[in-house]
């Protein structure tokens, strides 16, 4: 095993390479797309602008330069901390991402924690009592939901709880017509419930299935057989050996699932009109807001890669066999 400084250095270099590669591809895609940044900027005023003025804007923005020059200029600005100006929100891109991400963070963070806790508990129970009624219920739940698209669940929840039953609000992060800073905590929570449910339901299913598979493997291990020979009950085994040995894989899956969480939040936020980063992504795409779209792409990459790195680092930290490389030889039977 490589030592910690090398592990961290290696990860930073890799992250930088990934970010550059993503920037390159995203930029190329934006360039190849039919979105014309000048049209997107002008909007309805497009009729008032002649070809000469368009050429002036293009020259001012550097759009008349070769693509390579445009890319290096953009990358240079990015490295200098200037993410550009978002036409959609009429604010600096960094500011848009900052405020939007804070809104999303509550939603995604809670969904992430719920998926982890409930998914893990359900997975342990299903795996320890494999073939029992609990396992059957959990399996049906997990398989059905793991194969269901997020937006469909979101629409279904909206139809049942907001439209038919009227228990929850139909949209947004607060009541319509109330300034964001005036929304009470209770209202905030009321508006959070459905998006959170839509996002968690799927996350729970994923973690539960992964944990269940690991748990079944654990139940067949020698140390569980030994615990049984000591007269341990199934609950004893599930809590003492199962949870301990299934925790690492579950945590890894949880961190590795940040990408799916992000993707899910884009869909859920769109359906519930929840003003987070996911909704901003779609707005930016529809309005041709290239700087915002590219910045969100890079931000997502950073977010997901960091999650994966944390997962790997945790593995090294928690497993005693990996923390102590000299002792591994002693494990021979």
């Amino acid at each position: 095993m490589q030592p910690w400084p090398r592990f961290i250095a290696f990860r930073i270099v890799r992250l930088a390479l990934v970010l550059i590669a993503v920037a390159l591809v995203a930029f190329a895609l934006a360039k190849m797309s039919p979105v014309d940044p000048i049209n997107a900027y002008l909007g309805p005023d497009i009729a008032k602008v002649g070809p000469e003025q368009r050429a002036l804007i293009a020259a001012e923005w550097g759009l008349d330069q070769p693509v390579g020059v445009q890319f290096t200029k953009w990358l240079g600005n990015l490295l200098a901390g200037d993410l550009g100006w978002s036409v959609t929100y009429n604010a600096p891109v960094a500011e848009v991402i900052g405020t939007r991400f804070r809104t999303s963070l509550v939603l995604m963070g809670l969904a992430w924690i719920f998926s982890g806790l409930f998914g893990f508990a359900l997975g342990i129970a299903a795996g320890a009592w494999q073939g029992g009624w609990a396992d059957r219920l959990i399996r049906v739940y997990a398989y059905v939901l793991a194969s269901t698209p997020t937006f469909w669940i979101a629409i279904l929840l909206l139809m049942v709880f907001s439209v038919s039953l009227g228990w929850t609000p139909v949209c947004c992060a607060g009541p319509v017509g109330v300034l964001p800073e005036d929304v009470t905590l209770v209202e905030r929570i009321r508006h959070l419930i459905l998006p959170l449910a839509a996002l968690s339901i799927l996350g729970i299913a994923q973690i539960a299935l992964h944990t269940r598979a690991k748990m079944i493997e654990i139940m067949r291990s020698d140390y569980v057989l030994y615990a049984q020979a000591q007269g341990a009950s199934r609950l004893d085994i599930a809590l003492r050996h199962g949870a301990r040995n299934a925790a690492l894989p579950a945590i890894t899956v949880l961190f590795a699932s940040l990408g799916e969480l992000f993707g899910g939040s884009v869909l859920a936020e769109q359906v519930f009109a929840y003003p987070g980063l996911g909704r901003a992504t779609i707005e930016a795409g529809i309005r041709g807001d290239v700087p915002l779209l590219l910045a969100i792409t890079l931000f997502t990459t950073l977010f997901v890669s960091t999650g994966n790195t944390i997962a790997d680092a945790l593995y090294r930290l928690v497993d005693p066999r990996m923390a102590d490389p000299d002792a591994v030889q002693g494990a021979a039977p």
Partner: protein
Amino acid sequence: MTLLEIDSLSLHFRRYDRLFRHVEVEALGAISLALEAGEVLAVVGASGSGKSLLAHAILGILPKNAVLRGSLWFDGRPLDGTAQAALCGRRIGLVPQSVSYLDPLARNGDQLRWAALRAGRSQRDATRLAQPALQAMGLDPAIARDFPHSLSGGMARRLAMAIATIGEADLILADEPTNGLDPDNAARVLDRLAGFARRGKGVMLITHDLVGALPYADRVAILDGGRLIDVEPASAFSGRGDGLRSAYARALWRALPQNDFSLPEALHHA
């Protein structure tokens, strides 16, 4: 006093042959054995002879598709599922085959403490008993804070013996306790097992190493292909083996390098 009595025990595994027809594959056939308190009974056989399955059958930890027939008696009472659940870890202890039987992510001390809790000890007693149990097996109490991967094979086996005896077990089932150990460590482990017998416990020593087990065993049961060939007194394995009753045991004894190294007919046809 007869501690364990095995009466015409047979073990089959149910397997699906083609789609719906299931067949039973015999693993152990009609085994009758008795183990007295205070003795070391060596159960000797090649790998695949069903030695470990015999121990697992006594403990009631066989796989789901196992079919057990015949009867087991412990201390004069039938050893059925309920009795096994009540006695395993308390009056019957297992010393398993390898380090892989210890949870790799749990500290040694915790695993010992859990065994005590499973044997019905209180939380306080379990903590109090852990250190003397390690010392009794010649282990440094400091290893309680370590994880199993840092134990040597011999230390792991001694930890397993501490686990097996922390519940004051009367019957110790030792499954290949000297596997992979050098002669010194093997002798130390066997010596402790024999010590249990001297203090009145019954020890079933499951091994493939006949010669290694002889100095510590009182009687030797020979298993082959899931069947019990014979039970001989350990003292009969001496000289040319003329005191041995069964032809198979005699042949096995004479085939050893330090004896005649001959391969008589009996081994082929048994």
